[in-house]
């Protein structure tokens, strides 16, 4: 049984998140500002925090900085501010994820799940050469299996080959022509569309939010890449 601390000054949002997370089987604690959150954290064993940024008394960023002084519990920031700069600031201050309001409740739940899984398995991870890992995404080149946060994902043969090619070249941007030539073993002639369709399908299977991908990222105008997380 994992415990999630949700912190938001809006009681309605707090309550709805509590409902969703409880339904997933988590024990949920709530706090309405940064100070309360820090106190809850002292009294309980918390596995993940959902922290709103704009709150009275103490805001989310300040609270997070205080918590990070002696605790590396996963923190998902929640904010109405959707600018890139806000996201970058939040993440560089020590947050593990950033969700903008209004959010899809299921997405939030998925992200919480992902964070808890990584947090709880940290340090006990098996490392095999055949295993390609980034974040919660694992691809076993021997077993030809793909799992996301421990859940198996069903991919077609071509999709698997594309993902494997991308994960083997983790961090590199690969154009659709390169991918086509590597997977189909044929010269690429107006095949971008084929590749892009497959990529899209892969994203729908492995990403929490396919339009805002976490693993398989689109580099607009250049190609695709999988980053090491």
């Amino acid at each position: 049984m994992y415990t999630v601390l949700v912190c938001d000054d809006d009681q309605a949002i707090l309550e709805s998140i509590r409902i969703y997370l409880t339904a997933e089987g988590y024990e949920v604690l709530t706090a309405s500002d940064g100070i309360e959150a820090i106190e809850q954290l002292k009294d309980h064993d918390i596995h993940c925090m959902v922290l709103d940024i704009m709150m009275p008394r103490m805001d989310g960023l300040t609270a997070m900085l205080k918590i990070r002084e002696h605790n590396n519990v996963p923190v998902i920031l929640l904010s109405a501010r959707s600018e890139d700069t806000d996201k970058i600031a939040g993440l560089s201050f020590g947050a593990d994820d950033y969700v903008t309001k209004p959010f899809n409740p299921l997405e939030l739940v998925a992200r919480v799940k992902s964070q808890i899984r990584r947090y709880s398995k940290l340090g006990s991870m098996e490392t095999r050469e055949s295993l390609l890992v980034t974040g919660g995404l694992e691809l076993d080149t021997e077993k030809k299996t793909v799992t996301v946060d421990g859940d198996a994902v069903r991919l077609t043969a071509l999709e698997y080959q594309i993902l494997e090619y991308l994960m083997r070249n983790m961090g590199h941007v690969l154009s659709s022509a390169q991918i086509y030539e590597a997977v189909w073993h044929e010269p690429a002639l107006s095949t971008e569309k084929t590749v892009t369709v497959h990529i899209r399908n892969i994203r729908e299977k492995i990403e929490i939010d396919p339009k805002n991908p976490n693993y398989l990222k689109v580099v607009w105008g250049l190609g695709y890449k999988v980053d090491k997380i």
Partner: protein
Amino acid sequence: MATKSTKFKYTNPSKAICLLLAALLFALGTWCAVELGAGVLVFGGDDYFKGSAAAGKQSYTESRVFEQVLQNDLSSLNTLASKNETAYSRALAGKQEETVEEIVDQYMTRQKYLKQQKQDPEEEPFARSPEVYLLFGEDDYTMTIDFEYENMALSEEAIRKELDRQYDLWEESRLESYRSDRNAAQQWLSANESLFYYVRSADGTVYTNQSKKPSLAEVKQHKVFAVKNAKVNEVRGIDYLDAQYESGTPTLFEDTDDDVLVSFYLDDALASEEKLYRPGGSSFFRTVFEGEDEYIATRQMYDAMKDRPAGWVLTIMIVSYLAGLALLLWFLHLTGHVNDDRAIYAGDGSPEPVTYAKDGSRLVYAAIDRLPGDLHFLISAALFGVCLGLPIAAMADASGNFSLWKYFPLAGAGATFLCVLLLAEWLASVCRTVKSGRGFWKNTLIWRILRWFGRICKAIGDYAKEAWHLTKYTPEQLPKHAFWIAVGYVLGNILLVNLMHGLDRGFFGVLFFLLFAGLNALVLIRITRYLKGLDEIIAASEEGAEMPADRNDLPVSLKTLAANMEVSRERIDRAVEKAVKEEQTRTELITNVTHDLKTPLTSLINYSDLLDRKAGSKELGDEESVKYVGVIHDQSEKLKRLIDDLLEASKASAGNVQLNCSNLNLTELAAQAIAEFAPEMAKNRNEVVFVDGSGQPASAAHMVYADGTKTYRILSNLLSNAQKYSAPGTRVYATVSDGPATAGSDGTPGTSRTTVFELKNTSAAPLNISAEELMARFVRGDRSRGETEGNGLGLSIARDLTSLMGGTLVLDIDGDLFKATVTLPKQKI
């Protein structure tokens, strides 16, 4: 309170008495002085001042004045006796020959010289001095032959003739002058009737005032003064200084062979009244116009003076002068003061500021004091000169005529009286001017003229200074002044050039050249400085920078220009700043509002989702409620997108977007975007056909320099638009191609600088709207704002982002065909 005497002190009678008394005393002093002068004349200075006793011891014939008269007569007699024209001419004749020879000789020498030199005498200094100065005996006499070009060839004979002619003329004039001297002497002697004279001159002529030759008996009745050693000088006549006289035995010509001896007779009984004082000798007019017997006149003077105490006269003179001076000073002290109970107004009737002396009297000045001091002085001095000069001149003229001496004391006193009055009047005016505090200097014409001159000089100087600086002129004044400055400049140059030319090489030539060069250099410097100032202003205006700081150096016209431009620049800066600020405020407002909207929207989405789930698991009662929950959920999702779009649109239109531009392959990007939309397109049975410019399936790279995320946003907005409004089952054509080639400036075939992405779709609803309206925010292709999803913000955002990246977005509507064209630059702009 003033005492009675003090009151009297400043009254007019007091002053008048004072002045008159002073003048009278001065007059008395002068009277005494003239008397003393006469005494000295009669008796001789030493004798006279030794005392009246000493003077009294002298007999008339021993007196100085008698000696004087006698000397005059003796010289006249000698003149008469010595005239011998024939002898004089003879004496001269011998000299003539020598001098003539000398002149002829010199003349001929020069003639010869010039002939040798073949020169014009005009240009030859030696030849141009033709005058020869020669002496005839001891008389200066010039004989002149003008040695000129015309007479250069004169013969020796002609020269001699000319010299003879000149000599004759001179001799004639010389003889004439002797004759007139003799006549004058005769006339002089004839006035002194008490003198008996009988003179036989050297040439035998007899001059006498006796009807016949006196007999020896007659002569013996007289005291005789014989003249000894009186000789006729061959050339010069009688040496007057040698003429002596002494008492002695009377002689007659009969007694001697010497025909040049002069004797004369004087009545010994001059003291005898009957004989000496003849009738007809005392009338003033006769004295003046015909002359009076000098012996009688001097005898009268002698008689009047001989008992006079010279010491006393001297004392009276000194005392009178001193007392007169004292009184004059006292008068000057009094003048200008009046008693305070008198209301005094200045000549023009206007009350003057009242000033008081220490003793309570009031200081005033008279109307005459308004006359400038120096002018007053000149008038007074002129009158003074008349009053003093006329008597002095008259006395000097008559000083040799002893018969007039008796009038001198009165004349001297009168003149002194008038002069003192005049002097006192002027001095009083000066005193009043000074006392009343106006100062003498400031009331003079010279002062006024100097001041006026000074003012003119200052005005000219000021004007020149202003002209030099050009600083004081506003733009309106400048043309007028510039004209006069130009005129002055040209005239100055003309003057200096002329002076330079006229005085070449001399000190002044160099001086004026320096002035000329200096003037022009300075003018050039001024002009350069003016232009430099203008340049600075122009430079500053081009950069929109601040105007030159040292604007004080600039002329007023440029300063005005600079100041005006500075004002405009500041105004523009303020306007821009204000606009930017307003835009920022607006964007911020929208950002904040959308943030505030997002929080309740989050709850709305979350709870509607919860309800939806319940509906799905049939926990939520009836069908109606299920449907309603669905609507709420859909609409809240839509609201979320709207808010996001609104935020983005506001940022894009304000340019408040961070761009991370790089070289992108637009073909790849379009393919990625189309892939993203393929599933949604398929729902409506639409298909995207992606081709290049030649209609073949797109594969070649078309590079653009742009921000990938933003470019995707543009394309996705267009694709989303096409997806929403395309007629079901139609194809959507996407084309990527090079933009139109622009020819190079040198005429070479140009290369395309842009890449164009086109998206064409067939609208489901009729497009009864213009492209412009379509682009406007919140306007959708479907005017009825039907059920279809989406909003007009998409196109607006796409356009704003395109233009931010240096590209364009153009919409075309052709029937139901909707075409969007995005043009992006290939390279960094």
